């Protein structure tokens, strides 16, 4: 029955917004600051999170499969009732090995959740430097490991190629090389805890910009690592597995442990304190930014409350002339929405500028530029919260206005 699409409610709320330019602007700026801080803080927090997760994955695979050392169990089951059994628990010798690792790798590779599998042998060693010795560790390297941990990108001298072509090659960290005064092509001598000594040729140097790693770690080929431990070619200390969705690592690891009969440790459990502090920081950031957004909501609530108090006579006459409660609600919710949307638009611009500026801040070390993310989903989330708060901040006073009794106002 409506012959025109002209929306009188919109017209009224727009007029109110325009005639209260200054107040509108102030309330909008409140929203701008709220939205900008929200988006900016969450972007920072996600950036730092992503960086710290990425640095975990430089050394840790999503899931690590290994054989835990076993403690010898008493021969008689001690149910603690009658017999006091004297036991002398020890580590069972030779228990820390994965039997038939090739078959296990094959089994893992067949799982749909698996992206890549890489066996690894690692050992603690001493690097011989003149008369003194430097302690450190060696880790076996192969093509899968290179891909998994992106080792190639940390090579600063020499190359991965040379490593594959040189059976007794070694790639020490820059710190190790410096302490040993070793250059590309030099030979260095390392001794393992099993007292095996090997002379290895430096075919490359790596730098992770993390001093603790660069000063102790070296990569060697798998057979060298096995020989240093006095083990045969089927010895593997750990099988590293990367899966397609690392957020599911906990449940996938549980499944692998069941599947293989070995221990399977996911990266989240392995880095519990790091992950926990990440979660805590994310929660803190969200709480702070959400509170700021709420304060911005109060700005809108305030201006609408004021408008409604000021315009109570106008609301009464509109109702007398046939405006329904829902028309009045629309008028004021829309006024709130206009204020909120202006604020949100400016907030998106402001937060983009802030993120851009911070992403140009150079921190150095293995961090480089400040790790901040520029992500649509964070903006969308900020705008969604902004919208919800705006609508609530508009609706509460608007409902009060809708319930105004025109008789009480007009007969004064």
């Amino acid at each position, binding site marked *: *029955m*409506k*012959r*025109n699409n*002209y929306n*009188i409610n919109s*017209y*009224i709320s727009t*007029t*109110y917004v325009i*005639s209260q330019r200054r107040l509108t602007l102030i309330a909008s700026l409140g929203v701008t600051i709220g939205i900008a801080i929200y988006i900016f803080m969450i972007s920072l927090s996600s950036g730092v999170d992503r960086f710290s997760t990425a640095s975990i994955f430089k050394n840790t695979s999503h899931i690590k499969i290994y054989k835990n050392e076993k403690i010898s169990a008493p021969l008689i089951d001690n149910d603690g009732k009658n017999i006091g059994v004297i036991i002398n628990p020890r580590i069972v010798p030779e228990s820390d090995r994965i039997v038939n690792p090739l078959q296990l790798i094959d089994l893992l590779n067949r799982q749909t959740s698996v992206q890549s599998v890489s066996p690894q042998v690692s050992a603690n060693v001493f690097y011989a430097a003149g008369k003194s010795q430097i302690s450190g560790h060696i880790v076996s390297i192969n093509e899968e490991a290179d891909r998994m941990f992106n080792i190639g990108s940390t090579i600063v001298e020499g190359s991965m190629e040379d490593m594959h072509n040189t059976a007794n090659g070694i790639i020490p960290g820059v710190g190790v090389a410096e302490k040993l005064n070793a250059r590309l092509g030099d030979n260095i001598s390392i001794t393992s805890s099993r007292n095996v000594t090997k002379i290895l040729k430096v075919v490359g140097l790596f730098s992770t910009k993390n001093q603790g790693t660069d000063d102790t770690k070296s990569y060697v080929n798998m057979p060298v690592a096995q020989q240093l431990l006095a083990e045969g070619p089927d010895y593997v200390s750990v099988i590293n597995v990367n899966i397609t969705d690392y957020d599911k690592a906990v449940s996938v690891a549980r499944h692998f442990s069941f599947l293989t009969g070995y221990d399977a440790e996911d990266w989240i459990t392995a880095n519990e304190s790091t992950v926990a502090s990440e979660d805590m920081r994310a929660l803190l950031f969200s709480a702070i930014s959400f509170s700021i957004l709420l304060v911005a909501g109060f700005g809108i609530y305030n201006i609408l409350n004021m408008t409604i108090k000021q315009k109570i*006579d*106008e609301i*009464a*006459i*509109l*109702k*007398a*002339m*046939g*405006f*329904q*409660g*829902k*028309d009045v609600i629309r008028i004021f919710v829309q006024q709130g929405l206009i204020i909120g949307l202006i604020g949100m638009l400016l907030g998106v611009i402001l937060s983009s500028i802030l993120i851009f500026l911070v992403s140009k801040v150079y921190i150095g070390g293995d961090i480089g530029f400040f790790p901040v993310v520029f992500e649509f989903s964070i903006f969308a989330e900020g705008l969604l919260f902004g919208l919800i708060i705006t609508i609530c901040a508009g609706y509460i006073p608007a409902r009060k206005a809708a319930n105004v009794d*025109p*008789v009480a106002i*007009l*007969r004064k």
Partner: protein
Amino acid sequence: MPSEPVLQTDKIIKYFHEPVKFKVLDGISIAINRGEFVSLVGKSGSGKSTLLYVLSTMDTDYEGRLKIDGETITGQKQNSLATIRNEKIGFVFQFHYLLPEFTCLKNVMIPALRLGKYSYREIEEKAYHKLEILGMKEQALKLSSKLSGGQQQRVAIARALINDPLIIMGDEPTGNLDSKNTDIVFDIFRQLSQEEKQTILVVTHDNDFAQKSDRIIEMKDGGINMRL
């Protein structure tokens, strides 16, 4: 076929509870026909305004029955009452109650835009026409807050007329006007009732004004004074 009254009440009773319970309307039964120009008079406090607000459908807290245009109003929901007011009733109060941030033209257009029966252009044209009837066409594009009191009241009357309502109700609409403006308003009401067959019900303290109208209803202590 005798035409049904436009406005009809059956024993309307209303109480106020504050500060003490008292009967402000005591069984009001009236019937007003189409095109009648009726003045509602009586001493201050006799219940004229209270009755008018009940008749306007805005006050629903009463006993008895109210019919407008043959339709029973009593018991209807707020939203349908709002629609009835929008379509069938035009109001003029002692104070103009114009929206100060809007032009006179827009103020007049608002009830019609709410009703949405005509296109925007048609509504604008009608609004100009109503303003012209009240001699306010020249001021159409001025903000309503920039006019004199008499001019504002005339714009408020134009606004009450925009939807060509069946009934025009006024609570002392000339109360704040000088005699010249009062005469203008009277003539317009007279013309609307005679030529447009619109029904006029006006509360007034102005004896001349009341005497010139078609019928006077006098209230006394919440009832109709049958002296006339």
